[in-house]
């Protein structure tokens, strides 16, 4: 398809006159290095606008409610939610470390198998965790509360704590409109739902890339010129020869699905992380899914993915495609933190082992053999996905008497 053809079909954005001028300028002089083709423009535009529209999560009856968000904030920083009384969510998801912990693999009571992801933009996800073992944000929040290596308080411990502590039971009542009841499982799930209400508020702010993208959308040359040339070159690689945007698709820079990015997935000698394959199996054996009794939506209107997900052999060793907003703040990278910097990530894609990668037949990633300048351009682009200004950090709430 020629650029001309697709320009014409996107006529709403460009007058015929400017097409002609563009054509003439292209004929009259050598094409300027940063002149984007219509195809490139289209591909760039689909990474916005930001932020996208969102709505409350129908599977969580307190999604978006201020009382639940406040209660979730209390819970997030409370180490009493661990069996030892020493570990809170904030141990591994530190607000001033972009909600991650800076470690390769996280450590609670024990070191776990994976890297703690940041907690940005989760409300746009379909699947949660590196292996997508959870189909809601609240179900994902249950995992550390149930896993002894992380916090492991469990349903009985959590219910006892909430019933006996006056502040927590007050917060619960405010958020859910009733005192904690008899069903321990239900109380634990409700805590996870209040935490989800908090995490839904963590949407990244506007970035230099968004300003460039929107300037492109309204044909504002001055606005486009403010974006660094190296970032434009990196962006072209990202949407073009690098093929990155096939997986890192859309406004959040993820298609929300799973892929093999050629990252080794040994946990230790003789033990591998099954990735998505194990995630689907865990999903199917969990009582805490959109198909179970804890879904607050009688219509099950968001359960299509859970109902139809397919256990593929190729899912073995696949991990969720991470979103890339604020990625410069969340080192180290990949599911087990195996790559230290963004330059290391780009180097990885540049030198990827095709033979290993294509064993399953899929052909998306290629060894890119990028030059040094191309690699640094790609890093420059990724750095423009950082919000500016940084949004204020969510802090542990001051002690306020809940009545």
């Amino acid at each position, binding site marked *: *398809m020629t650029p001309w*053809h*697709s320009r014409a*079909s996107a006529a709403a954005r460009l007058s015929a006159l400017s097409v002609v001028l563009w054509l003439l300028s292209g004929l009259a002089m050598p094409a300027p290095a940063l002149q984007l083709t219509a195809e490139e423009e*289209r591909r760039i535009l*689909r990474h916005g606008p930001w932020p996208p529209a969102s709505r409350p999560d129908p599977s969580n009856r307190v999604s978006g409610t201020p009382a639940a968000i406040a209660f979730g904030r209390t819970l997030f920083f409370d180490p009493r939610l661990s069996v030892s009384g020493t570990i809170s969510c904030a141990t591994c998801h530190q607000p001033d470390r972009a909600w991650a912990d800076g470690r390769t693999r996280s450590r609670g009571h024990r070191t776990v198998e994976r890297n703690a992801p940041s907690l940005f933009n989760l409300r746009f996800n*379909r699947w949660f965790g590196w292996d997508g073992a959870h189909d809601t944000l609240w179900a994902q929040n249950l995992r550390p509360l149930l896993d002894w290596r992380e916090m492991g308080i469990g349903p009985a411990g959590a219910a006892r704590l909430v019933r006996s502590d006056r502040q927590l039971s007050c917060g619960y009542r405010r958020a859910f409109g009733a005192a904690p009841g008899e069903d321990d499982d239900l109380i634990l799930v409700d805590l996870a739902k209040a935490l989800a209400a908090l995490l839904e508020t963590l949407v990244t702010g506007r970035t230099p890339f968004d300003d460039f993208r929107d300037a492109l959308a309204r044909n504002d040359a001055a606005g486009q010129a403010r974006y660094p040339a190296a970032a434009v070159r990196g962006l072209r690689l990202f949407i073009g020869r690098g093929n990155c*945007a*096939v*997986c890192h*698709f*859309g406004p959040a820079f993820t*298609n*929300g*699905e*799973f892929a093999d990015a050629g990252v080794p997935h040994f946990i230790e000698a003789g033990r591998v992380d099954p990735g998505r394959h194990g995630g689907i199996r865990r999903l199917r054996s969990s009582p805490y899914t959109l198909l179970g009794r804890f879904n607050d939506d009688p219509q099950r209107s968001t359960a*299509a*993915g859970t*109902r*139809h*997900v*397919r256990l*593929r052999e*190729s*899912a073995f060793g696949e991990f969720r495609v991470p979103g890339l907003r604020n990625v410069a703040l969340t080192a180290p990278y990949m599911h087990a933190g195996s790559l230290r910097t963004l330059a290391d990530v780009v180097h990885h894609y540049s030198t990827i082992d095709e033979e290993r990668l294509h064993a399953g*037949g*899929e*052909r*998306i990633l290629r060894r890119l053999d990028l030059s040094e300048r191309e690699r640094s351009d790609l890093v420059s682009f990724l750095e423009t996905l950082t919000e500016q200004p940084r949004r204020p950090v969510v802090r542990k709430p001051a002690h306020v008497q809940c009545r």
Partner: protein
Amino acid sequence: MVRHGRPALAAAFALLLAFALPPAASQAAACARPADWTGGTKTAGEVWTAWWRPDPAPIKVSAHFSIRFHLCGPPVSRVSVRGWMPDHRHGMNYRPVVALNGGSGTVDGLLFHMPGLWQLILGIRGETARETLIAETVLE
């Protein structure tokens, strides 16, 4: 191979495999759009002709969609549906479910998770024939 740049599922159909019955071109011409539809795409094979349309339309990258279809031709006993990206050599991460009611039906649980060229592959089976129809669409 015909490729359409339109994001809607304006599809080109190719006949892959047909046997047992002689070509029935008149049957294809006679296959009318179902009365209560607007839009939709018509696909003529050797044995069957399909009208079908996605819901919601157009199909978007990584969003669940369903398909309604109507088949003209001999009685149908089974329809299967899958998605395939020929350039990447992978299919969908989801297993669609077909509900067949006479010559019509719906397919739920489809999701095309990447931009690029997708094929929607309909496997149709009757008493004496089977046929595979392939629709192609480029998602942006």
